[in-house]
């Protein structure tokens, strides 16, 4: 007698260092992940690439390669620790398949690209709840 294999589903969760994305992850584990399906949670972390910084008064600064290298290794460490935190939330929840992806670039593009590639059943992300002005500064001043 053939056993019915539970349908495989991918759930893409965008994580960063914020509390909001950890909350979104645990919400997702509680509400989206289901025993009726063979679910895989894919944790996606976007590492921003920064080589130039702009300040509010309009002048920009370019950093030397050593400073960039230090910042890169710091970012890598942050990604590692945030991923570990996210993985812990998943493990605490129980039996669920987890995959990790760390990509470089602007979070918005990275997330959309990954969603296109992986074809998950749902994309989960946290929301900072920024008002109009904070959003503007986030978007236009790196």
């Amino acid at each position, binding site marked *: 007698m053939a056993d019915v294999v539970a349908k495989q*589903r991918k759930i893409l969760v965008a994580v960063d260092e914020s509390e909001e994305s950890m909350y*979104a992850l645990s919400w997702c584990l509680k*509400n*989206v992940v*289901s*025993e*009726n399906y063979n679910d895989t949670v894919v944790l996606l972390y976007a590492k921003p690439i920064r080589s130039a910084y702009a300040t509010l008064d309009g002048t920009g600064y370019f950093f030397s390669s050593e400073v960039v290298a230090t910042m890169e290794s710091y970012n890598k460490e942050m990604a590692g620790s945030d991923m570990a935190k996210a993985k812990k939330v998943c493990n605490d929840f129980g039996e669920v398949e987890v995959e990790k992806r760390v990509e470089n670039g602007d979070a918005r593009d990275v997330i959309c690209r990954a969603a296109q590639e992986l074809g998950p*059943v*749902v994309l989960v992300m946290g*929301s900072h709840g920024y008002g109009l002005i904070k959003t503007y500064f986030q978007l236009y001043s790196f």
Partner: protein
Amino acid sequence: MDKKKEVVMVGMDDSECSHYALRWALQNLGQTLSRSHLLLFSAQPLLEFTVDLINDLQENQRKATLSLLANAKEICAKHGIIGEMATEVGEPKEAICKAAEKLDIQLLILGSHGRGAIQRAFLGSVSDYCVHNAKCPVLVVKRPA
């Protein structure tokens, strides 16, 4: 003593996208829905006409909305889920967010027309508005092209 059940609200109109969203939710979130209350919500847009016509037209609108919701309730029943119906008069995006807050909704599910940026600027987007203004988690279901 029964733990208070969470309420999941699905915003509906007569579009194919919102019906797709409902079916998607019934298929993929079956476990969550079976342990929550499911609320099917549709807004009746405010009509601006002369006072004489308005009552008739509003009444027609109400009947159309209720039949839409009854249809949605049947779709839920096919999946073994009981859906409750609710409707309010007002602009859809505001009515949905207000109802979600008043009824302490735990999850709001909406369909998306998938319009481009320019069409959105002219016609507006209920799902965009709700994602930014609702206080609860919002699930926007996109129809495959």
